[in-house]
């Protein structure tokens, strides 16, 4: 399996270079943001927003967190994409070469999961380093504590790992050359999952929307349900980080077992 791991990492060589550039870029951007939020134009904008009563302290803090989170998600997102491995193998026709090697189907599937796990680890390490710089090295300007950063990184890593685990399962299920379709299927499944989890809110929202449309926007009293803001969602996810971690582990394990099962049934897919 080590040989396939090496091959997979060779396939991701270009992406690892892009990741290295992104990592440096993200680090510089994040430092610039933190400095500006403390002493520069962003700090000024926040002071104005507070003075005008548009935002409160909590929202300003959360906004900074979102900005840094979005920036920090980039290096991991660049690295953790198992479909690129499948696409690279499909293009080369490597599956038939692999099928002739003295490796079981289980080991061949495991090599894909292990590779993305290694890459996820590298991405997490990079983000932890950025967090360390922003919260410990630049402690005087720190907007977010190291602990909060770690929590956010756990959330990012969980979301990416879940997405990737499902993506790889669908790549194996749909077969070589269908990587784009696999990603579309993953997005569809996650969207349906989110809708089902929030079905109550979705129904209430739909009802209110119908009422609003039927009465006309001016007469409508607004939705009865409180719609969550992005701050609420981030807060909720971080509160439930442990649950998210367990769910991620469960989905990844399930995806791994199901992938091996499907690959054994289909044969020749990996």
């Amino acid at each position: 399996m080590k040989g396939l791991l090496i091959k997979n990492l060779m396939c991701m060589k270009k992406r690892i270079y892009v990741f290295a550039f992104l990592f440096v870029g993200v680090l510089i951007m994040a430092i610039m943001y933190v400095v500006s939020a403390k002493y520069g134009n962003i700090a000024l904008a926040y002071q104005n927003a507070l003075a005008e009563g548009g935002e409160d302290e909590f929202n300003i803090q959360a906004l900074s967190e979102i900005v840094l989170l979005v920036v920090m998600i980039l290096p991991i997102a660049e690295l953790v994409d198992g479909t690129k491995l499948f696409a690279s193998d499909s293009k080369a026709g490597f599956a038939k070469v692999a099928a002739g090697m003295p490796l079981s189907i289980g080991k061949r599937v495991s090599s894909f999961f292990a590779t993305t796990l290694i890459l996820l680890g590298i991405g997490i390490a990079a983000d932890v380093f950025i967090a360390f710089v922003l919260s410990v090295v630049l402690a005087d300007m720190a907007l977010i504590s190291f602990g909060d950063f770690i929590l956010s990184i756990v959330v990012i890593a969980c979301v990416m790992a879940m997405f990737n685990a499902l993506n790889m399962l669908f790549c194996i299920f749909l077969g070589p050359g269908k990587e784009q379709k696999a990603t579309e299927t993953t997005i569809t499944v996650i969207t349906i999952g989110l809708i089902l989890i929030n079905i109550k809110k979705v129904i209430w929202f739909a009802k209110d929307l119908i009422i609003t449309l039927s009465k006309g926007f001016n007469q409508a009293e607004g939705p009865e349900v409180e719609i969550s803001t992005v701050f609420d969602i981030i807060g909720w996810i971080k509160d439930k980080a442990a649950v998210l971690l367990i769910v991620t582990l469960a989905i990844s394990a399930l995806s791994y077992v199901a992938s091996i099962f499907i690959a054994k049934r289909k044969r020749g897919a990996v």
Partner: protein
Amino acid sequence: MDEIRNVIEVKNITKDYGDFKLDNISFAVPEGSVCGFIGQNGAGKTTTIRLILDVIRADAGEVFLFGENIKNDSAKLREDIGIVYDEMGFHEFMTGRDINIMMKNIYKNWDEKAFFDYLNKFALPAKKKCGDFSRGMRMKLQIAVALSHNAKLLIMDEPTSGLDPIVRNEMIQIFREYVVEEDHSILLSSHITADLEKLADTVVFINGGKIVLAGNKDDMLETHGLVKCKKEELDSISKSLIVNVQPGVYGCEVLVNDRAACEKLYPGMVVEPANLEEIMLFYVNKAAEDSKEAR
């Protein structure tokens, strides 16, 4: 006397895809021999090879490699097999060095020195991306990989198709050198019969998912003959000798399955030796006519 061991034994294999069926095929490749697996495109050669390598599973029947059923541990058995396909299969960005790093971590018996010696021998630059190689170079790279882990058996699926005659000849020479070792065997699938005529000890003919002819190549060439005669003379030839009849330049051409008997029975007729290509064509046409009649 030692019993001859079969490195490949295919027993009553059936695989039904709906639109194509590999129908109860059986054959064996004895140790130390070269088996030519002949058939036109779509005859079932690649499917059979995929079944032998346990890439796909048969609906019925069994495959034995080196005397062991592949169902037990096909991955372990593949350690002793070198495989060459009609297309390369390695990523185009990979160099010979990259492939060496990958393979030495996959095959227990990977011989790094042998691999680089083969690259030198085949004039393949180790630092050049294999995507920049010509078709001939790509095939040679596959052969270098297949020969560098002390494989006891080479399985090759159309390795010479699309290559110019000079490269094809070079490759046949490489295969000849490989089988000099007593325990080395080759299963060579091809529709280029001229290559097999130079190399094969035994031949297995497959057509439409069925084995139509199998046996020793020299015996096959020795027994079969081509009779060129007029249509009126055709009725005088015993039906049991005739494999198939095709229209020819001066009347018709008849493939007979016992040249010696034909020469003896019909001294006035000219019976020429038939080559593998002619034998394949006559058998394929016969199978087509038989299936037409059956419908």
